[in-house]
C-alpha cells in the first residue's frame, strides 16, 4: 500500500513523515519522529499513556491516525518544558514523588497541563475526573492529584 506524505507541527517544529494509512499518530510520533515520550499502554484509548494535544485538544494519539495530523499543531510531553526550564507541573511531579515507574507520567503531564489551561482552580473531584482517562498502576493517584492541585495553586498565586 502506498504511503501518505504528512506535514504537521510538533512542539512548534514543522515536521514531515510518510505513513501507512493504518498507522496511528502514536506510531508516527514514536517510530517516524523518534518522539518516544508518548507511550502505548493499551492501543484502545483506555489508558491515556499516549496523551497529546492536537490543536489544543487532549486526545489519545493511539486513537488518531497519522494521516489525520496533516496541518495540525501537536504538543507532546517533549514540548512541555521550556528548554531546560521545567514546567511547574513537571517540578511538582518530582517533588511530590508522584511517579514510581514513570510510564504513565508523560500522559499525566499532558493531560494535567490541559486541565490547568482550561480550569486553573480545579477541585479534587474535578482533577480526579479529568485524569480518570490516565491509568496509573503504581501510585494510587494520591500524590499525582496533590501535585496537580498544588501546581494549580502556585500558578494562581503567580498570575
Amino acid at each position: 500500500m502506498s504511503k501518505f506524505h504528512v506535514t504537521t507541527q510538533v512542539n512548534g517544529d514543522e515536521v514531515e513523515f510518510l505513513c501507512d494509512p493504518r498507522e496511528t499518530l502514536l506510531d508516527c510520533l514514536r517510530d517516524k519522529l523518534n518522539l518516544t515520550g508518548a507511550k502505548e499502554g493499551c492501543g484502545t484509548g483506555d489508558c491515556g499513556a499516549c496523551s497529546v494535544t492536537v490543536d489544543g485538544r487532549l486526545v489519545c494519539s493511539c486513537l488518531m491516525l497519522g494521516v489525520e495530523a496533516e496541518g495540525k499543531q501537536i504538543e507532546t510531553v517533549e514540548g512541555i518544558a521550556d528548554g531546560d526550564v521545567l514546567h511547574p507541573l513537571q517540578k511538582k511531579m518530582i517533588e511530590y514523588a508522584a511517579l514510581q515507574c514513570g510510564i504513565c507520567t508523560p500522559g499525566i503531564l499532558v493531560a494535567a497541563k490541559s486541565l490547568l489551561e482550561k480550569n486553573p482552580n480545579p477541585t479534587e473531584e474535578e482533577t480526579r475526573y479529568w485524569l480518570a482517562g490516565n491509568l496509573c498502576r503504581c501510585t494510587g493517584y494520591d500524590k499525582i492529584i496533590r501535585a496537580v492541585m498544588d501546581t494549580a495553586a502556585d500558578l494562581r498565586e503567580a498570575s
Partner: protein
Amino acid sequence: MALDDRKSGFTFVGTRPDRPDGLDKVTGRAKFGADMSAPGMLHGAILRSPHAHARIVRIDTSKAEAHKYVKAVVTRADFAEVPFKPGLEGEFWNVLENVMAGEKALYDGHAVAAIAATSALAARDAVKLIEVEYEVLPHVTDVDKAMAPDAPVIREGAADYSVPEGVHPNVVRYHESGHGDVEAGFAEADLVIEDSFVTEATHQGYIEPHACLGQLGADGKGELWCTTQGHWIAQKTCAALLGIETSQLRVTASEIGGGFGGKTTVFIEPVALALSRKANRPVKIVMSRSEVFRATGPTASASMDVKIGMKKDGTITAAEGIFRLQGGAFPGAPGDMTAMCAFAPYNLTNVRQVGYDVMANRPKQAAYRAPGAPMGAFAVESVIDELCKKLDLDPIDVRLKNAAHEGTKASYGPTYEQIGLVESLEAAKAHQHYSAPLKPGQGRGISCGFWFNHGGETSVSLALSEDGSAQVMVGTPDIGGSRASMALMAAEVLGIPYENIRVTIADTATLGYNDVSHGSRVTYASGLATIKAAKHAVEKLCERAAAKWGIPVDAVKWENGCAVPSGPNAGDFDPLPLAEITANMGSTGGPISGHFEATPEGAGVSFGIHIVDAEVDPETGKTSVSRYTVIQDAGKAIHPAYVEGQYQGGAAQGIGWALNEEYIYGDDGRLQNSIFLDYRIPVASDLPMIDTVIVEVPNPGHPYGVRGVGETGIVPPLAAIANAVSHAAGVRMRQLPMSPPRILAALKQDG
C-alpha cells in the same frame, strides 16, 4: 548481622530528595522497553492459540515465509536445538513450553509460532498467514472443577512428590503445615465459624506492555534489551532456552513501566532472540495489551475454606485453612504461600493450613505483589471479622489480643525476631480514622496483612571518582524509586551529598549476579549491599589516610565524609575529606572501589493494617471507598515518600482486586475481557486519598533496620473492604470481586 552494627541518627536517610531519574521521566526522555531501536531492526509478531486446550496437529508456515517482508519464522522446533544444554528440565522447560507451545496449546493466547518482518504492520499482517491445524480438547478453567475427578488432564506427570495419592493429576503441589491440635482447640472455643471463599484471577496491570529488542548471532553471542524486573534471570533463562552460554548473552534492563511480579520471567525475549538468530538481524517485539492479558501472568484464582474458633474474650483457640489455587497450565500457583501467610499475624496454639497448586487451561500465573497472601487474608480476616461481630468485640482489640510478637512461633514454623505488628495495631487504634464517626450508610472494616520479604543474591559495586563523586552500580531494576534510596544509603556511609552519587542499573556484563527485583527485596538487599560496598570503600579511604599520616589504620575513623585520626592520634591531623583522598588515589595505591557479593538472609517480615470506610449503593450495588488508611511497619523508611507510595499503590491495587478486577472466561475457555475497557483497574475518580502511617520497628537483619515495604500493602485490602461492606450493607461477601451484580445479588438474597 550484629545489632551493634546498627546505625541511628541519620543525616540523609529519612529525607525526601528528588529522585535521580525524575528529570528523564517528566520530560519523556527515559527509555522504556519499547523505546529502543537498532539499525536494521525487524519487528516480531506472535501467533497465539484461539483455543483453551488443543493438540497442535500441523503448522504450515510456507505462506508466511513466502511473504516479501518476512525474514524469519519460528516455531517450537527452533528452540529444540540446544547444543550446549540438551534436555531442558524443571522450570526452564515450563518457561519454554509457555513461551512457545509444544504438542498442545494449553490456554487461549498460548504462543504457537512467530515471525519477523521489516515493519510492525507487515509482521501483524503476515503472522496471519501461518496456518495451524488444531484438534480441540476438553478444557477446564475453574480451580474446583480442575480438581474434580472428571476434569480433563492438563499434563500427566506434572505433580511432584508432595501430592498425596488419589488426588487429580491437575494438582501438582501440596503443602501442609502448622502446629498444636486444632480439633482440641476448636473444642475449647465458645464460637467456631467455618466458611468458604472464592477469589478470581487478577492481572498485575502494569501500564507498560512487555517489550524487547534482541540480537543473536551465529557465534552464540547476543544482546538483549528488555523491560524486566530481573535481567540476570532473563539472561539465564533465554540462554537455556536458546542453547547458548549464559555469559555470551548480555542483557540490559530498560526503564521498567511497572512489574508487580509480572516481569520476573520471560515471554517474548527468547522468541525475539530465536527470530534474530534465524534472520541475522535485531528483532523487536512489543506485546499488545490484549496479549499481555491473554498470555502473561495473572495471579492465581482461589477457592478456600477457613475455620476459626474463638473464646468470648477474643482468644483464638484454633485456626484451620484449606487453600486451593489455580495457576494456569503450569505448576507454580502459590498455594503454599497462601497457606503459610494466612494465619501468620497471630500467635496461635493450634493451627493447620493446607495449600494446593492446581493446573487449569489458563495462562501461566506469575507473581503478583505478595503472591498468594491477599487471597488467604481475605478468607481469614473475613472470618475473624464475623467472629468479632458475633461476640461483640472490637476488631483491633481482638487482633491485638492474638497478635504475634518477638518470640512467637509463626503459624508456618519459624520463631519471629523483632516484628512490628503490635506497634502497627496500636498505631491503627490510635489513628483518628478509627474513631471518626461514620456517616449513615457507611461501614468500617479493618484487616491485618503479612508478607515474608526476601533477601536474594545481590551484587553491588561502588566506584569513587577523582573529584570525590561516587557511582553505584546495582543490579535490581528500579521499579519505584530505588535509585534514590540507594543514593541516600551510600551518602549516609560516605558522608558526601546525595547529589554527588549516581546510581545506575548495571547490565549483566558489568556486575555479578543479582536476583530479581521482587520479594520486597530491593531496598533491603541492594540497600544492605550498597551500605556494605560503601563501607568497603571507606576502609580503603581510611587506609590511604593512615598511610599519608603514618599511623595505624585502626587509628583512623570515618566521620562526616572525612578520615579523622582517632584514639591516641586524635587531633594530630586535620580531617582529610574524601575528595582530597580520591584526588590523587592513582598515585597512592590505585582506584578506590567497594564491593558486595552475597545473599543477605535477614529480610525482616512485614505486617500492615488497613482501615477502610465504604458505602454501598443499594440500587446499583456499587461500592465506594470513602476513606482509606494504611498502617505498616517499614523497619526504617529510607525515602519516606516512596515508602508511602508503595503503601498507597498496594492499597489501590487491592481495591481494584476487591471491587472490580477479574479474569472472565467464556464457556469456550476464551478470555472475555482482554482490554483495559473491560478489565477495569481503578482510575483516579474511583479512589479517595490514601492516608499512610509509617511504623518503624527496626529489622535486626539490616544495618539501618530496613524491612521491605513493597508487597504487604496489597494483602489487607481485600478483607478490609469486604468487612467494610459487611458493616455498611449487612452482607458478607465471600466471592471477589465484589462487583455491583454480586453485591446486588447478595442484597437480594439477604433481604
